[in-house]
């Protein structure tokens, strides 16, 4: 670990050097002004963009004044351009002599909702490459940029990774604007603030930071912004990049930020005082800070009644333990602690293991690795072939392996129950953490039995308690224990009893539910007022 961290430090140093080099670069477009001769602007643009074929250039003339309109084909909405720009250009015949041509264009001709005057080349590239139309006018060293963004985008579909029985069925798309709109449609509050920035020296990816002013903790907002500003990378292709660059701890298998493709989940996180980071080009929105128990809260927990969701949540936590302890328990019990197995079962297992050539650990390892390979293969294969894999998998893992005397039937049960338990964790990040820990636990169980497993569990608990997510203890509100925030941990309180936001995340506006929200049928049954209540 220490060697790795040294290497990282070296890398960081070299990264800083790159930074300096870049700053010294005299060719930075920010310094360059737009030229007065519009044709020179066009030729410069073409030269800089390597004469890319998707640059569309349309020259026009309004009375005597020449101009040119530039946009990127595919990024800009060409129908909008012809409707609101070209058509109005052609209809305008005279420029009133008393008016400045540039101002006249802005005031009277360019029929777009959002326009902007730009002066340097950096802005030109920015606007052009994000789908805006740039209008250069002859004789002016500035240009008009009109918002004409419009590209082919994926429609809002059902979420594909975080499914629920009950609840909204929309999910985020790859477009930042659509995603912010999906959240805004749920929280119609002026306090829902959106800040944007561009990250990625080459990719110039749009990042949106969303939070509810007054509910979110200002310190955490500042911290997140600071960490985002520190990012110096060529590109951000998915929110996963951001996640890995801003998380508190790299050396952990546990996720310290949360991500979701469900707008309802992100909205609920915002309402709890968390901060959402939306990255253009990916449907996965990050929310932070994240705590351990959050990864066992599915969104239907809040849509179903509390008794049901509480029992399901406890089941999920149980399944999590099965997912990383079941094979280790099998190994420890069969190789160290045979006295712990009931006699008949011990003999039954012994009977099955009689013709298995490997020790229990190797047997378990073979099966677990086979299963992991199958899962990975099933994930990558084209859908048409996928079915074949599942058939082969069922045969290999199940029937054939047992009949060949390769593994014992009990092992198949252990592996399959582990796998199924693993899938019941609502968030993939946490599930994959359990998968990794499982192998460590198996190793410990093979060397030291239950004693080793206890060591592993102890180490894991210590590690979990040491983790922080943006300064918030990861095991909050369990360690440090906080009695007032237990309403959404193991037991999901009735919705009217969840009076406060988690106080360790949200600062300021804590109360979320009013008094006397408990449904009382008597009020409706007889219309007579019952007098003072509460």
């Amino acid at each position, binding site marked *: *670990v*220490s060697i790795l*961290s040294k290497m990282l430090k070296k890398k960081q140093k070299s990264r800083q050097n790159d930074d300096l080099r870049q700053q010294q670069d005299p060719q930075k477009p920010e310094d360059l002004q737009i030229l007065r001769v519009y044709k020179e602007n066009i030729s410069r643009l073409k030269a800089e963009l390597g004469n890319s074929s998707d640059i569309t250039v349309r020259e026009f003339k309004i009375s005597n004044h020449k101009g040119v309109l530039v946009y990127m084909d595919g990024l800009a909405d060409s129908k909008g351009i012809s409707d609101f720009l070209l058509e109005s250009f052609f209809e305008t015949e005279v420029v009133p002599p008393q008016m400045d041509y540039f101002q006249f264009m802005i005031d009277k001709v360019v029929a777009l909702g959002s326009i902007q005057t730009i002066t340097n080349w950096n802005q030109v590239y920015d606007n052009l490459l994000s789908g805006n139309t740039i209008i250069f006018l002859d004789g002016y060293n500035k240009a008009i940029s009109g918002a004409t963004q419009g590209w082919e985008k994926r429609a809002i579909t059902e979420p594909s990774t975080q499914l629920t029985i009950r609840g909204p069925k929309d999910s985020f798309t790859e477009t930042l604007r659509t995603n912010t709109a999906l959240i805004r449609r749920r929280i119609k509050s002026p306090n829902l603030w959106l800040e944007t920035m561009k990250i990625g020296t080459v990719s110039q990816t749009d990042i949106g930071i969303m939070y509810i002013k007054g509910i979110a903790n200002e310190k955490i907002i500042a911290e997140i912004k600071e960490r985002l500003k520190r990012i110096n990378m060529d590109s951000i292709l998915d929110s996963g990049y951001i996640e890995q660059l801003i998380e508190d701890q790299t*050396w952990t298998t546990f996720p310290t930020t949360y991500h979701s493709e469900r707008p309802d989940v992100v909205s609920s996180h915002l309402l709890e005082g968390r901060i959402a980071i939306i990255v253009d080009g990916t449907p996965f929105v990050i929310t932070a800070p994240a705590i351990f128990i959050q990864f066992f809260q599915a969104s239907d927990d809040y849509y179903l009644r509390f008794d049901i969701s509480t029992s399901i949540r406890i089941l999920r936590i149980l399944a999590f333990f099965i997912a990383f302890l079941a094979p280790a328990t099998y190994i420890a019990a*069969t*190789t*160290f*602690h*045979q*006295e712990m197995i009931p*006699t*008949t079962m*011990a*003999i*039954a*297992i*012994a*009977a*099955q*293991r*009689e*013709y*298995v050539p490997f*020790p*229990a650990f190797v047997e378990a390892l073979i099966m677990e690795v086979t299963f992991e390979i199958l899962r990975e293969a099933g994930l990558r294969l084209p859908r048409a072939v996928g079915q074949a894999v599942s058939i082969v998998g069922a045969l290999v893992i199940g029937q054939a392996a047992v009949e060949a005397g390769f593994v014992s*039937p009990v092992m198949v049960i252990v592996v399959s129950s582990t796998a199924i338990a693993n899938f019941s964790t609502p968030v993939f990040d946490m599930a994959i953490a359990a998968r990794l820990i499982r192998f460590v636990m198996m190793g410990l169980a*093979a060397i*030291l*039995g239950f*004693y080793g497993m206890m*060591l592993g569990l*102890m*180490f894991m608990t*210590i590690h979990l308690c*040491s983790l922080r997510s943006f300064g918030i203890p990861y095991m909050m509100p369990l360690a440090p224990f906080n009695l007032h925030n237990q309403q959404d941990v193991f037991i999901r309180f009735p919705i009217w009893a969840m009076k406060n936001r988690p106080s360790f995340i949200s600062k300021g506006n804590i109360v979320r539910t009013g008094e006397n929200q408990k449904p009382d049928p008597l009020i409706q049954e007889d219309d007579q007022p019952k007098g003072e209540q509460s």
Partner: protein
Amino acid sequence: MKKLLLPFLLMSILILTLSGCWNQKELTDLAFVTAMGIDKGKDKKFNVSFQIVNPGNIPSGQNGGGQGLPIAVYKSSGDTLTEASRNATKKVSRRLYYAHTNLVAISKEVAREEILNVIDALDRDPEFRTTTQMVITRNTTAEELVSSLTILDKLPVNKITKELKATQTMLGENMSVSIDDFINGLVSNGKEPIINGYKISGKKSMAKKAENLQMTTTGAFLEADGLAVFKKGKLTGWIDHERARGVVWILNKVKSTDINVSWNGKKNAIVFATIRSKTKVSVHFKNGKPVINIAIKDEGWISEANTAVDLTNPNKIEKIDKQVEKEIKRQILASVRTAKKKKSDIFGFGEKVHRANPKLWKKIQGNWNEQFAELEVNVKVDSFIRREGIRTKPFWSNLNK
């Protein structure tokens, strides 16, 4: 980094100091000893037989088990149990594993003389469970008992342990006695231990043959038989049938049993089946001598009425109650008499006296066995018929019309 390293180092050090049960043993390297038989040896003190499971032949799931027998019995001898157990490794390819030993069978001869030299080995071994049941073989050797095959349970040991528990709850003539119970009885001041008796009925030579299992009425079968009474760590005699039930009853271990009473001169006319019963033993002192009071409260139902009797009549029911009480009292007094004759306080009356009056106990504990033989014992039974089954009037009532 230092923060991470320190706990890790500490744990690594702890691993070295706390390596209590690190010895890994694969299931396939173990020979599960399910039962152990201890007989008197010829050259050495003990002949020990180990009933070992043959896992490959235990039917499990689809593969239905192999062709052979589910168990194999290995014999070895030694002056101590450990010696015998180590000697057995010459004959068994696997490590003998005692954690699943559910039965220790001790032959009558060993029980008479050497049982005290066996117990500590069973008690001390960390693998051996003190909940393991003990039986004394009556008309056979321990070796024959552990070599027997049974038809219903694939593992013969299950047959014995399950059966003892079943008779304890259904009949009350036997009770499951573990090594722990036995040791408690041995060391307790004012109580003597008892152990179940076990025998093989039928042709003993058939018991260990597979063909025995091919018949519906097996040629030889295992059967619980009576309670062995110990005195000062030595077998002194047996208590059987009804009297054994009385013992179990006084020890408050009876859950369910049957009592036959006569009605209008007809013997065994009404059968009373208890469903729950509670026994309280108390002591009071008369002229400086302890008197034992046994109070039994039991409930039950009428499981048979083989005579014309109107069970809807509360007076009749009460009369039956009285009869049952009398019968139970008779049985209990009979077993007390038997124990008195053997001068062995298997009921733990001495313990009760000790608790009630420690000063007196100090004086009399020296010859408690003699005292016990002349002890005054009163029995009070409070029986109650809870229900009559699904018939009130037996068909006998209408038979003569």
